[in-house]
């Protein structure tokens, strides 16, 4: 792997910090996102809650859909490919999107292997529920991580679980004696060199953002308070009563997450949030976070 190339990929992720990345499905939504102050958009065919409701196989978005979004905005444009579908990823790279999300929201193409992301010039973001999963994805070349949360649920509990889990495991690893690192690498199922790097620095070598279930300004601020460096919002905007107001409010709460008066002000007058799902009502196969490993 070329260390210089990997650094460039991580640097773009650094520039998205403190911002919001919004899912959009057409030019009109993309314009709304940029006007609301989004730092990037994710161009996709259907938002996660629609994918969940309609079922069937969810794939990379139609090319025209991504091009339509890109023509509309000047902020970075991301797009999703299926887990393990390295040809969809190559197509997105040839299209010159700014970031590829190898996403569990789409139907996995490979149930054993994620994409070798070092083989690409385009940076990747991947989902992770815990430190082992995070380090496996970084080992494969991911330049940014996000919690998996439970996409399209409008329920923040899974994103919180993943942020807490990764934070706890980072602290434990940093506190562990050096001669326990190999055993910890084994238990985490993570590359030893990355385990050593994280143990010594006390933090992940790439930014970690929150995703999956963010529906309110307070949800976004909660994720930031738990250590997320930025947030992805999918169904939470365009499945709510007033998408423009909610998008602006979530962007505001993400910048001012430490200031309750600002989060309060951002929370006023938004109308109804998206309807939510109780996680325990979902069967194992309906839980998108269980996709990938």
């Amino acid at each position, binding site marked *: 792997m070329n260390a210089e190339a990997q650094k460039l990929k991580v640097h773009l992720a650094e520039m998205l910090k403190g911002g919001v990345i919004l899912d959009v499905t057409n030019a009109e939504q993309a314009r709304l996102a940029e006007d609301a*102050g989004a730092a990037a958009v994710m161009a996709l065919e259907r938002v996660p809650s629609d994918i969940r409701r309609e079922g069937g196989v969810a794939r990379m978005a139609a090319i025209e859909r991504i091009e339509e979004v890109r023509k509309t905005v000047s902020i970075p444009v991301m797009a999703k490919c299926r887990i393990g579908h390295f040809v969809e990823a190559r197509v997105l790279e040839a299209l010159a999107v700014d970031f590829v999300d190898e996403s569990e929201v789409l139907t996995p193409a490979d149930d054993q292997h994620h994409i070798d992301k070092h083989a690409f010039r385009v940076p990747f973001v991947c989902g992770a529920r815990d430190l082992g999963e995070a380090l496996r994805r970084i080992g494969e070349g991911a330049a940014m991580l996000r919690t998996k949360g439970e996409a399209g649920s409008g329920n923040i509990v899974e994103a919180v679980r993943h942020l807490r889990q990764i934070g706890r495991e980072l602290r434990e690893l940093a506190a562990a004696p050096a001669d326990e690192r190999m055993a910890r690498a084994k238990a985490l199922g993570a590359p030893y060199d990355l385990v050593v790097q994280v143990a010594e620095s006390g933090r992940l070598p790439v930014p970690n953002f929150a995703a999956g279930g963010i529906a309110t300004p307070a949800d976004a601020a909660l994720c930031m308070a738990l250590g997320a460096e930025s947030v992805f919002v999918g169904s939470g905007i365009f499945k709510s009563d007033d998408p423009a107001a909610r998008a602006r409010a979530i962007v505001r709460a993400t910048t001012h997450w430490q200031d309750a008066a600002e989060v309060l002000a951002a929370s006023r007058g938004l109308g109804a949030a998206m309807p939510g799902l109780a996680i325990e009502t979902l069967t194992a196969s309906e839980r998108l976070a269980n996709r990938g490993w």
Partner: protein
Amino acid sequence: MKIGVLAVQGGFAAHARMLAGLGADPILVRRPADLGDVAGLVLPGGESTAMLTGLARDGLEAPVRAWTRSRRPVFGTCAGAILLACGVAHPAQRSFTALDLDVERNAYGTQLDSFTAVVDPGGAFPGLHAIFIRAPRIVRVGDGVEVLARVAGEAVLVRSGAAWAATFHPELGDDARVHRAWLREIS
């Protein structure tokens, strides 16, 4: 010395780390009151559209614009340089007209066209590795503006008094020479 770092969105944490490493006291600026007693202001990289939206929303645009136009010390990198310029193209957007420059946004292309380059010999920072991330390009340098570094002949780091602008990211990586020079200039 207290140095404000605009923290609406973007790469503010890397600037704050580098400033702290050089002995300055970085203050994250999210509200007008945060500008209170800072001796200099850094406008970081990130998305200039997102920053302008946040600045206007939070009542920060007028005070930050006034600050940058008052000849007080300011340092804009990447998106921050776009905010300081006079003319902004591709697409056009408003700016603070604090430095006599015209810039073109995302002038090199998408993230796939991001790159690292060693600055041309003969500048103020020999051998500096400049990191360009979806970078803007300076397409016009005004008369009173001094070029401190070039890449392939084009200005990438400029100054006019204590107002500095870079189209690359001197806050990323380990080489703190540019920040050190700016701090020395303003102290």
